[in-house]
């Protein structure tokens, strides 16, 4: 199975936007992290400050994937931004808990709720 990243809340009109959502689908592992890294680099280049990563459709995530999430957290913290995760299933949640990074991210059931929390703050 492959892996896809869909960008939402971007720049139909070419504008940069401070909030971006990445919707991940499939398996995030050693082979697919470069795709996610590319989408993250693009978000940084577009002046993204707040990133919502929707992992509802993520069937697998290993420690390589977690490294990339932590890297995004570090990169956005450096510009006083944030990374929120939406839709963690029981498997992904378990991997986050066992690696001790569960509390490093704000989590929401859905990306819409993550966006609402950002607008409210």
């Amino acid at each position, binding site marked *: 199975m492959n892996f*896809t990243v*869909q*960008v*939402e*809340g*971007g720049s*139909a*009109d*070419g504008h940069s936007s401070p909030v971006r*959502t990445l919707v991940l689908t499939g398996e995030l592992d050693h082979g697919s992290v470069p795709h996610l890294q590319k989408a993250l680099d693009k978000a940084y280049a577009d002046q993204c400050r707040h990133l919502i990563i929707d992992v509802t459709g993520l069937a697998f995530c290993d420690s390589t994937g977690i490294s990339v999430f932590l890297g995004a957290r570090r990169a956005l913290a450096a510009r006083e931004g944030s990374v929120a995760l939406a839709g963690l299933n029981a498997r992904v949640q378990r991997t986050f808990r066992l690696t001790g990074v569960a509390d490093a991210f704000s989590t929401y059931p*859905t*990306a*819409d709720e993550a*966006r609402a929390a950002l607008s409210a703050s």
Partner: protein
Amino acid sequence: MDRRGHASAQWPITDDLSTLRGQVRGYAALAGLSGVRLQDLVLAVNEAAANVLDHAHGEGHVQAWHDERSVTVEVHDRLGQLVPAHATAGDPGVTTLRGRGLWLMQQLCDEVRITRDAQGSAVLLRQEINGLPKA
């Protein structure tokens, strides 16, 4: 495509609905849809295209356009046998295996319209960009 990015797009319908979903998702996201309402539109298009595979010999195409207020996707077949009455059947209930596609489209989208002309039938699916999930 004008300078605000109001491109229209067209894709063929093939057996590979996953690719079609990706195309529609990418288009509608760029147009400004996100979250549940984006997924809802993608699922509705998938349902209409699956009907073209099942009931219209798999021959058809999908057209999409948008403005500031909404994204519209039209799923066309060449057979021309889909009529508005097909969309009035209602929820079939859990004892019936099939027959949920048109009902589901109406739960997912702000506007669902069936049209017919000399080229075939089409389902028009429209999602407002700043709306709330329908249900």
